[in-house]
């Protein structure tokens, strides 16, 4: 049992808005805060991906296929990057003694567009010499820097989760609200449709939806397609829950009051009923983002999502499917670790949000 608060804190609590109370409860959950912190960092990194990445995602360097990670060493007060050269045998690299270059920060490098529209050439770090690369996470079979591709991939993988959730939850809430509010035939039809969508195992439905799009599309089209496909599946579950909540909410006095004032149905649904479901929706959204991220990963991994040379966490993992690669070049699994951390952070945050939204706990 938690210690009961004194009267003064109870009075102080009464002055706080529900959101402030919610925030107070959330702050006490360390793991949830840690999850939230990790997510903020991850999304900031994705936002500045081009700046942080030392190379471009499609920067081929076939001399350096499957290069192991190069870690800068601390020498005095500077980081220096050692150099390797191809040794005898395939994909074997040998350290070149005494050939180091200092690691510079804010160096000029390849062109990229910050936030997708500001042309820039400054990178967070690098050696400034194309023949003396720094590969923190090694390279893939085409000699592309895994870290840079991971960063560019995070732009896609992380944003798909957020946009997908926004899209499908908006639809799910509106459709669920309509369904629960009007009941009758509208409700029956919508709910049967939801049931239909939910009764097909998700990935099978994803592939049949993918089938309706042309096999080859531009990268932007593919991106939009993935969001459309995942949202098409995602709205159904949301709509069902919101419908259930609406069914009980519409019987309440404040809805009756709004109706007696002559407000329109749509306004009642959007202004009076849906806001009451927000705390549930926020928790559910946080816990659902991983499904969208994983959906993109699976589609791209199977070769029907984001296409090479564009990077996504899913299509980067495709290379790891080759067991020989996997055994010898384990850094190819880096995107897997990135997915794991992201999903874990979302789960931590979502779990804490759920506890904090539970008003029974003080």
């Amino acid at each position, binding site marked *: *049992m*938690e*210690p*009961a608060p*004194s*009267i003064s804190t109870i009075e102080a609590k009464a002055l706080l808005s529900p959101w402030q109370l919610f925030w107070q409860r959330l702050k006490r959950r360390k793991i949830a805060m840690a999850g939230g912190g990790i997510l903020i960092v991850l999304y900031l990194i994705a936002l500045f991906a081009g700046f942080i990445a030392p190379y471009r995602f499609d920067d081929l360097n076939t001399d350096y296929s499957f290069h192991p990670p190069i870690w800068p060493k601390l020498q005095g007060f500077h980081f220096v990057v050692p150099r390797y050269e191809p040794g005898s045998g395939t994909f074997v690299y040998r350290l070149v003694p005494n050939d180091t270059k200092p690691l510079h920060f804010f160096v000029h490098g390849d062109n990229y567009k910050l936030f997708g529209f500001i042309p820039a050439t400054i990178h967070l770090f690098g050696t400034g010499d194309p023949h003396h690369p720094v590969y923190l996470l090694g390279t893939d079979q085409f000699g592309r820097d895994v870290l840079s591709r991971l960063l560019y991939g995070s732009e896609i993988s992380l944003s798909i989760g957020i946009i997908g959730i926004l899209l499908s939850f908006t639809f799910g809430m509106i459709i669920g609200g309509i369904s629960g509010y009007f009941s009758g035939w509208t409700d029956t039809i919508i709910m049967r449709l939801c049931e239909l969508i939910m009764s097909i195992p998700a990935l099978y439905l994803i592939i049949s939806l993918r089938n309706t799009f042309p096999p080859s599309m531009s990268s932007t089209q593919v991106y939009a397609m993935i969001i459309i496909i995942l949202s098409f599946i995602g709205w159904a579950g949301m709509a069902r829950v919101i419908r259930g909540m609406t069914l009980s909410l519409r019987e309440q006095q404040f809805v009756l009051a709004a109706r007696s004032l002559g407000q329109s149905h749509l306004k009642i649904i959007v202004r009076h009923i849906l806001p009451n479901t927000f705390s549930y929706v926020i928790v559910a959204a946080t816990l659902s983002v991983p499904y969208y991220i994983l959906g993109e990963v699976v589609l791209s991994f199977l070769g029907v999502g984001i296409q090479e040379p564009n990077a996504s966490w899913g299509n980067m993992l495709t290379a790891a499917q080759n067991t020989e690669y996997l055994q010898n070049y384990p850094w190819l699994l880096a995107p897997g670790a990135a997915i794991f951390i992201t999903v874990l952070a979302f789960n931590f945050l979502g779990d804490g949000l759920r506890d904090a939204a539970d008003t029974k706990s003080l």
Partner: protein
Amino acid sequence: MNLLEIKNLKMDFGKNAGALRAIDDVSFTIGAGETVCLVGESGCGKTVTALSIGKLVPTPPAHYVGGEILLNGQDVLQMSNDQLRNIRGGVVSYVFQEPGASLNPVFRVGNQIRESLKLHRPEKANNEEIIRLLKLVGIPAPESRIRNYPFELSGGMQQRVMIAMALASEPKLLVADEPTTALDVTIQAQILELLSELKQRLGMAILLITHNLGIVGDMADRVAVMYAGQIAELAPAQELLRRPLHPYTKALMASVPKLRGDADRLSAIPGNVPRIGNFPPGCRFAPRCVIARPECSKEIPRLIEVEAGRWVRCPFWQAS
């Protein structure tokens, strides 16, 4: 020797710095065949006291810090798990507030009663005995009810089943924790009538917990009034109803509507029952008391015997 003797019982929720005293220095007795009512507003510790008799409050979070509960002269708080299981049902049986929630929803009524019989009177664990028990508590057509699930019965019938189950083990003491609160008013009277009738026939003692002073007069031999984890007044029922001594009892009586009498005398007690951990210093009723004086908040008054068999926790009980 009394059947039950609770002496200076003290119980906390939580430990050390976070400990909250839920029961503070509660003492009372129940003789064989006696009916005692434990009265008080919700949250005053009635249920926890009652559950303590069978040591049914989970520990942790609860901790017994002092006192003893003598059942047939043996301290329940010191008993081993095996001993506890023998007295639970064997000596003291319980009937709870929500019959719907107290019956296991997935087992047939008959089997739940049989479970009690098997445990305490294995030689009688047969259908005839179950039917006899169901008849005893006034369930019509008991033969067909045996195979019913709890949800197929009405609330009143469910409570009768609970009582039958409690009686199955032939207890010396029946603890009924607000047995009628969750039922319709007409059913309430039936259940109470059943309880007093059973008491006459079986000669068992009853500890009846209620927040309703109205039923005290019909049922109780003696009454213990609890407030904020303490006993405020302990007295024979008729005397207490005729002449309450503690200001809290008086206030409680004034808040009960009477069929005859002036309507304007009905009054609510100002304020709320303090929550566990928020007890005021000194007399816990002082902030709501009409005769409170400054010294009331200094130290906790003791429970004193002011007349034979009448105990009051208020030094100013004579003041009106």
